[in-house]
């Protein structure tokens, strides 16, 4: 309601101002064109987020200086700190990069955003920039009309720059014509009050326009037209910097704790930098004058001096904060702790993860891993073991033999609470991610992950039946029956130990290929159990009715194993893992190595009903 009222008042005020002053129309059109240009640029660069940008981001953030350099360069190229900030929030939320790396990028983005001031002050207002806009506009439209994704993206980038340039041109004209009719210099304020008031004005303009770039354009154009004093323009630039935090704060609302911590850092960083800049405005201004002389910038060239000031206080802020990044990251992680979530609650599926195809895929992968963690805990309890036993290094057989009773667990209940509810969330998120603009590779990966989540759920369903028979015969007084059930439990315990270990490793070709070793061990173990059962039947040690139960249960155990290993194969396959997939062994290969003659039914790769 408040939002709608504010918007209505704003629209009315704009209409009145445009009706009253034709110069204001030019001014407002300049800002509008500039902001539309930024939207086009964001749209264009977002289309590149299907791969190259993510790969570069992941590779360039292992050291702080690399993160800062990445933030600086990417923001300079894209001319949008908002896009870089939002992508960084989504990467930190999906745990694709750490908080410290995210902090580095945000600091770099603060430096990169000052390139806009240089572009506007150095080029925009001194050269007839609109002359460059027209050819870009024409080529941009031609490129944008192409079907090919990349061409379309380049079209948007060209259109973005064209509109930025046109915006600067109109803004310049608007302030020049405003000069005759309206004198903003009447509102010039000096001293501390002036600094504080103009900083606040800078914050407000940036919050309204949601772009520090657009605010800087207004400041520089006004300064060029002599409508504001140099001193007040410095305070406005500080305010613009401070106001830019609003974008990341709004973006982090829909993100998880990681994103919120990053937003908190951005607010702290900008607030501290702005406070330091206000407190040291005099010395900073002198430093700007001294550096300007060194760079050959004229003493009365206030536009370039403003750009220099903007860069200087951001660079000094980054230098000042750099030594504290790791301790600050630790501080935020210990102080900003979310409410503990239930195991059935999704941990990675947030709206900010939908920002790019790569973050959506990573968030889903992490959530399926979480689902698998829940499922494997349930399966461990299903075979009457503790998680600590399975996760430890001690031999499993003694622990299995020590069992004196099978603790009854309601697998149905646990399935509905911890597995099904989480799977539902994953399915809904995947459907939402697929409705967003995505790449073919990301869509394929999402389909694979959906199948992996189904495999995990099917494995738990298998335990429902197995647990029932384990409770009935698992601790039988007949030592032969007990021996075979102990073997089935051991086979599953070993599988769960290996799969939980692999789940803790990062995806990679070698990790994924190591699953074949587990498959082979499982296949051999299954053969040994079946041979032993045949032997016991021949020796009449176990009744035929129980022998068939054992065989069914061994089948369930095998099914659970295949489902879990198939899911793990998807989870541990790297995004560019086609080579590893080509080298993974087929069920026939495994069966042959285990000494079999035909492929068992459960081992076929494409099960009925699968996509």
């Amino acid at each position, binding site marked *: 309601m408040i939002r709608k009222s504010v918007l209505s008042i704003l629209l009315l005020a704009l209409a009145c101002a445009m009706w009253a002053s034709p110069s204001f129309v030019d001014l407002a059109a300049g800002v509008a064109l500039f902001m539309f240009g930024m939207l086009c640029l964001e749209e264009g660069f977002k289309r590149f987020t299907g791969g190259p940008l993510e790969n570069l981001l992941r590779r360039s953030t292992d050291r702080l200086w690399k993160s800062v350099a990445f933030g600086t360069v990417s923001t300079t190229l894209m001319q949008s700190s908002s896009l870089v900030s939002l992508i960084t929030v989504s990467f930190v939320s999906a745990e694709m990069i750490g908080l410290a790396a995210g902090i580095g990028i945000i600091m770099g983005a603060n430096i990169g955003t000052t390139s806009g001031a240089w572009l506007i002050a150095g080029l925009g207002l001194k050269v007839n920039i609109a002359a460059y806009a027209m050819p870009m506009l024409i080529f941009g439209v031609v490129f944008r009309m192409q079907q090919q994704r990349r061409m379309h993206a380049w079209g948007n980038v060209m259109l973005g720059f064209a509109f930025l340039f046109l915006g600067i041109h109109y803004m310049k004209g608007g302030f020049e014509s405003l000069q005759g009719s309206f004198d903003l210099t009447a509102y010039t304020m000096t001293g501390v009050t002036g600094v504080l008031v103009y900083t606040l004005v800078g914050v407000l303009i940036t919050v309204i326009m949601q772009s520090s770039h657009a605010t800087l354009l207004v400041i520089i154009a006004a300064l060029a037209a002599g409508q504001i004093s140099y001193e007040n323009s410095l305070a406005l630039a500080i305010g613009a910097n401070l106001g830019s935090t609003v974008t990341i704060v709004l973006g982090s609302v829909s993100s998880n704790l990681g994103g919120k911590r990053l937003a908190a850092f951005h607010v702290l960083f900008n607030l501290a930098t702005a406070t330091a800049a206000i407190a040291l405005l005099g010395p900073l201004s002198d430093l700007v004058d001294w550096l300007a002389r060194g760079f050959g910038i004229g003493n009365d060239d206030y536009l370039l001096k403003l750009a220099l000031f903007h860069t200087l206080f951001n660079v000094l802020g980054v230098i000042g904060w750099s030594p504290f990044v790791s301790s600050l990251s630790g501080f935020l992680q210990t102080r900003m702790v979310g409410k503990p979530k239930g195991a059935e609650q999704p941990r990675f599926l947030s709206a900010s993860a939908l920002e790019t195809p790569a973050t959506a895929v990573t968030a889903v992968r992490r959530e399926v891993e979480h689902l698998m963690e829940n499922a494997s805990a349930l399966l461990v309890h299903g075979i009457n073991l503790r998680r600590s036993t399975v996760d430890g290094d001690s031999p499993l057989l003694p622990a299995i033999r020590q069992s004196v009773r099978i603790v009854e667990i309601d697998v149905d209940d646990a399935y509905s609470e911890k597995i099904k509810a989480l799977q539902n969330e994953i399915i809904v998120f995947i459907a939402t991610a697929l409705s967003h603009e995505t790449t073919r590779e990301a869509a394929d990966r999402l389909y694979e992950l959906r199948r992996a989540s189904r495999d995990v759920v099917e494995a738990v369903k298998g335990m429902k039946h197995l647990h029932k028979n384990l409770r009935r015969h698992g601790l039988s007084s007949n030592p032969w029956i007990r021996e075979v059930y102990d073997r089935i439990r051991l086979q599953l315990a070993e599988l769960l130990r290996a799969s939980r270990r692999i789940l803790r490793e990062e995806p990679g*070709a070698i990790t994924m290929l190591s699953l074949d070793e587990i498959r082979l061990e499982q296949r051999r173990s299954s053969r040994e159990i079946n041979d032993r059962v045949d032997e016991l039947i021949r020796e009449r040690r176990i009744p035929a009715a129980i022998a068939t139960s054992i065989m069914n249960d061994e089948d369930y155990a095998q099914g659970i194993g295949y489902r879990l290993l198939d899911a793990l194969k998807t989870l541990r396959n790297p995004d560019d893992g086609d080579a590893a997939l080509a080298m993974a062994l087929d069920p026939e290969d495994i069966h042959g*190595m285990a000494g079999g003659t035909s492929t068992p039914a459960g081992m076929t790769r494409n099960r009925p009903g699968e996509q």
Partner: protein
Amino acid sequence: MKAKRLLRQLNSFFDSDEKTQLKEIKAIRKVLKALKEKEKSLKKELQANSDPENAASLQTKLDVIYAQRMKGLDQVKRLRAQKRGDPEAP
């Protein structure tokens, strides 16, 4: 004749299939190298091992790696044959 050859060379330059094959070969060779290293370290571990159960497990791992490497090498051969335009290529 020269124009035809030039056209063929140009086609090959723009041929995305050929580029994809080269990329695939490179990726497989990278995994093959990593597998070879893992094989070497497992062999060392096997030599130093005295527990028969552990030795059997290590041998299983070595067997699997060997089979995977053979599959990878076959794949590289097949891709190379395809790249050469060998009609006998599988």
